[in-house]
């Protein structure tokens, strides 16, 4: 009788052991699978973070460059306003009209060429005749210590050939 009980207990323990083993194995398998998934997810997240960081760095660099370039574009107008404040064009016109005329025409020619260049036109356009040989004018270059660029509205066809 006792041996039958012992055998029963033994069988029950074996059953429990088998159940424990299979359950544990299943759990280990699930956990391993989850671990692989987590590793993949972590790798993806890590890659995303790297890509976003790189993107942020690139964007920051480009934004800084843009800010600098936008600032540079202000320089011409600022410089012109400064020169116009410093100079007295009316007095210059009365004192020496041809000198002022030469400076204005030089600055105008330079301005048109700057416009062309910044639009992608790399052609080396020769200076107009009235800037090349006109002795009536003063300084014919775009004198840095002069003002501005003219914007005379006269059309090309009406421009004299000096």
């Amino acid at each position: 009788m006792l041996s039958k009980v012992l055998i029963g207990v033994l069988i029950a323990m074996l059953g429990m052991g088998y159940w424990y083993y299979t359950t544990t194995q299943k759990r280990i398998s699930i956990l391993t699978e989850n671990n692989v998934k987590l590793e993949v997810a972590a790798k993806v997240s890590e890659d995303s973070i790297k890509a976003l960081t790189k993107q942020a760095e690139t964007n920051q660099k480009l934004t800084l460059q843009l800010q600098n370039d936008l600032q540079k574009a202000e320089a011409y107008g600022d410089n012109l306003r400064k020169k116009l404040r410093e100079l007295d064009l009316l007095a210059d016109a009365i004192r020496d009209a041809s000198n002022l005329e030469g400076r204005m025409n030089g600055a105008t020619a330079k301005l048109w060429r700057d416009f062309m260049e910044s639009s992608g036109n790399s052609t080396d356009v020769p200076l107009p005749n009235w800037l090349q040989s006109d002795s009536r004018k003063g300084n014919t270059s775009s004198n840095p210590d002069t003002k501005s660029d003219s914007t005379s509205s006269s059309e090309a066809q009406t421009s004299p050939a000096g």
Partner: protein
Amino acid sequence: MTVPVVARPKPLQLVDTRVYVVNKDNYEQFVKQFTDENGELAYVALAIKDYENLALNIADIKRFIEQQNEIIVYYESAMKKEDEDGTEKP
């Protein structure tokens, strides 16, 4: 989203313009020279102040065009980097 970078507009091809500075001392010389060169004595005159204003206006237009240009370059560079990285910007 990938947007193709399109070609820039045709570059500017500007023509030179001539300014005459005239005062009471050189007016007669100007009239003679101008008539010789243009055939007729008809011109557009600007006061010095208006010339300055015109120059300032042009300078501001220049500033605007250059800044627009820089912004286009910025976007083009961003698109290019995106292509190189194979990543997509939000």
